[in-house]
């Protein structure tokens, strides 16, 4: 640790300012730099990629992972991890589909959206309750909860559930001036999440708790409330993801959201949110989501074998984790 000797440094020059900016935003610059490189590279190689419609569909395909990653970001900022987001999404997907199956009318849409949100919130509150009571590793706790949810999902149905009313499908299809409404809404959600984490009390509390629970407690932060809030937000966003999936596929899917728990952690980590908590930006998580979406799009266009896709994703994760060292390492 270096010690500062002299007081103020005289007005920093332009280049000093640039250096400070780069230093404090290195992960954000890195991820968006990568997005540019991959994006431009593919655009040169592939004419299909350059289509405006492809860009729009790229954004639309990132919505589910985006929703899950926003919730995941909140939890990871507190120094935890929510491995139950994918199964929460699946349960909500199946429950809502089951209700529609019994009664396929548009009037049920709003109550179902509310119900889904409430289920997500309950699962999140349960996670948060366990984390604050047991002080066990959040990864293990949420992993256990995910396993329970997986079982419940199988009990609900192991075949696709039909009967989603046509009005519900508009969540996926509705467009304004050629741009899907959901893409616009999603951008607003990202913006709100950014403002929440940087400019509100509960948002700042996430960083404080992730930085040091002791210090947070001594700084008039309600630590348990903050943790539970983070898991509830994560649960609600996971539920939104599950309901969006339902609008996309039009059937309740017993295999919905498979693997998205891992991917949401990857997106968040790639975006520079420290897996040890307390550091990072939602803007970075957005970068992580876009890059993952972009890569899978690129793989499809270039017709890369699915095995290589898996391999490359794994490598990306390892590089991302290696890039952000543990604060405990020397």
């Amino acid at each position, binding site marked *: 640790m*270096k010690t500062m*000797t002299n007081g103020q440094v005289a007005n920093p020059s332009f280049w000093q300012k640039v250096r400070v900016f780069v230093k404090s935003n290195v992960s954000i610059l890195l991820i968006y730099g990568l997005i540019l490189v991959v994006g431009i590279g593919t655009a040169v190689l592939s004419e299909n990629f350059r289509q405006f419609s492809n860009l729009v569909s790229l954004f639309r395909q990132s919505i589910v992972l985006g929703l899950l990653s926003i919730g995941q970001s909140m939890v990871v900022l507190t120094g935890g991890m929510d491995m139950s987001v994918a199964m929460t999404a699946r349960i909500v997907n199946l429950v809502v589909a089951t209700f529609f199956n019994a009664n396929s009318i548009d009037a049920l849409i709003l109550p179902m959206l509310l119900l889904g949100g409430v289920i997500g919130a309950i699962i999140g509150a349960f996670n948060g309750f366990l984390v604050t009571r047991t002080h066990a590793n959040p990864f293990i706790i949420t992993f256990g909860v995910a396993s329970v949810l997986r079982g419940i999902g199988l009990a609900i149905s192991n075949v696709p559930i039909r009967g989603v009313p046509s009005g519900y499908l508009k969540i996926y299809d509705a467009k304004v001036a050629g741009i899907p409404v959901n893409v616009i809404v999603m951008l607003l959600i990202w913006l709100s999440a950014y403002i929440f984490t940087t400019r509100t*009390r509960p948002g700042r509390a996430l960083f404080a708790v992730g930085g040091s629970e002791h210090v947070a407690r001594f700084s008039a*932060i309600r630590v348990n409330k903050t943790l539970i809030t983070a898991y509830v937000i994560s649960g609600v966003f996971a539920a939104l993801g599950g309901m969006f999936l339902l609008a996309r596929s039009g059937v309740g899917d017993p295999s919905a959201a498979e693997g998205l728990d891992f991917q949401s952690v990857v997106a968040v980590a790639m975006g520079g949110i420290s897996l040890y908590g307390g550091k990072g930006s939602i803007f970075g998580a957005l970068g992580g989501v876009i890059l993952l979406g972009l890569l899978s799009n690129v793989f499809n266009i270039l017709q890369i074998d699915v095995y290589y896709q898996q391999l490359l994703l794994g490598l990306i994760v390892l590089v991302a984790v290696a890039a952000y060292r543990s604060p405990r390492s020397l």
Partner: protein
Amino acid sequence: MVETKAAVRETIEPIIFLRDIQKSFGGIHALSGISFDLLPGEIHALVGENGAGKSTLIKIISGAYTPDSGIIELDGKQYRDFTTNQARALGVGIVYQEFTLLPELSVAENIFLAEQPLHSYGLIDMKERYEKTVELLTRLGAGGHISPNTLVKNLTVGEQQLVEIAKALATDARILIMDEPSAVLPSNDMERLFNVIRTLRAEGRSIIYISHRLSEIFELADRVTVLKDGQTMATKYVADTYHGELVRLMVGRELTDMYPPHNNTIGNVLLEVKDLYIEGTVSDINFQVHEGEVLGLAGLGGSGRTTVARSLVGLAKILSGKVLYLGKPVPSTPAAAAEEGLVLIPEDRKAYGLVLNQSMRFNIVLPNLRQLSLRGILRGNLEKTAVHESVDTLKIKPAKPEITTENLSGGNQQKVVVAKWLLSKPRVVIFDEPTRGIDVGAKAEIYQHIRDLTNKGVGVVMASSDLPELIGMSDRILVFHEGRIAGEISREEVTEEKIMQLATGIVTSDAVA
């Protein structure tokens, strides 16, 4: 013994000699031309304000940092690049301020952690390790009461420090660097530490001793080097200097009055503790805190001083009794207490005071988010103004709100912790060790802030192990001994002796009063 050594000293070659060492980090000079020499068999004190360059100098001697320029001479050989391996080979050992022991391992396992004595067939030789440990501890005068097989977590802080020293000696260190060893010790363990250090000197080892407590230096050291702003101000024989001169060299001015004068208007009761009983540790506590007064809490480590301080903001399990704040039961969490203007500024700024990987701005704003928000959204301009005011009022350096707090010196870190809470306009402030491990200049400033608070009618509780500061600042002092209040001493009557007599249980309160 000291005198004879001093007499021959002039002719002895230094064991380590640094000349004109420079080192900077990202354009900021940590050391700008330091010279330092260490003789065999001397205790050489290193003093200076936080940020003067002491830590950097140590790291250069231990090879952790390479100097930008300058010469390092060891045993007459010159080095430009000096590595940790070379330092170790020469016998440089460091006893860190924060202990590096593993609590779940035994004393012997800790001491020989890196280099376990082995049997010829490769397994650890437990018997030899045990015997070597006993030998080391005996040399340090602790052979009798620390067993090599005790787990480190079961030792007192003072005993852990001895183990830490033994660990450094296990590699046969000739140069022992001790970074504020007394800061963590209760005062009754200090004499033992001093004796250990004197023993090491008698064995011909050299000790670099860093401390903020000047009285220790006069008691212990042979020579003293004063650093300021990354430069050597002077190296003096302790016998040839005096307290005031060292302070002047350190801060560049004479600190005639560390402690600002008392406020004479003491008002209504703000906080009242009645028959407080806290699980297993503290019982029978009764006292009041008034507007405009400083109530000192004295006592040795483990006497209940910190427990009581924490219980005032709901951080201890109260079994019976009451803490009343403005006539009502005290809120049950620090957050709720803070909302009503009752705040605790905790000891150990690194563990409890600061989110170290966050900026100064983040930390200062943290407990004040509500008052800086409008309709739930934090206002950038309010935040900016508040932080700038705090930095100005407390003279935090460097005055860069975005700097990460782990890069600040100890004194400035403490100022940030104080700034956090001054911003919330409290009515009662509980300070726990407000100036531990910070330099005299910063200390004087913090005392002035405490006095400013009481002048505004704020009630202050100050728990501290620094007796001069308790005496200088308090209107009344409660002395704790084994979980009870052993006595109360008023400002007019207080002396260090009276406090220590009560704190060690030599005298009961009636005898003092």
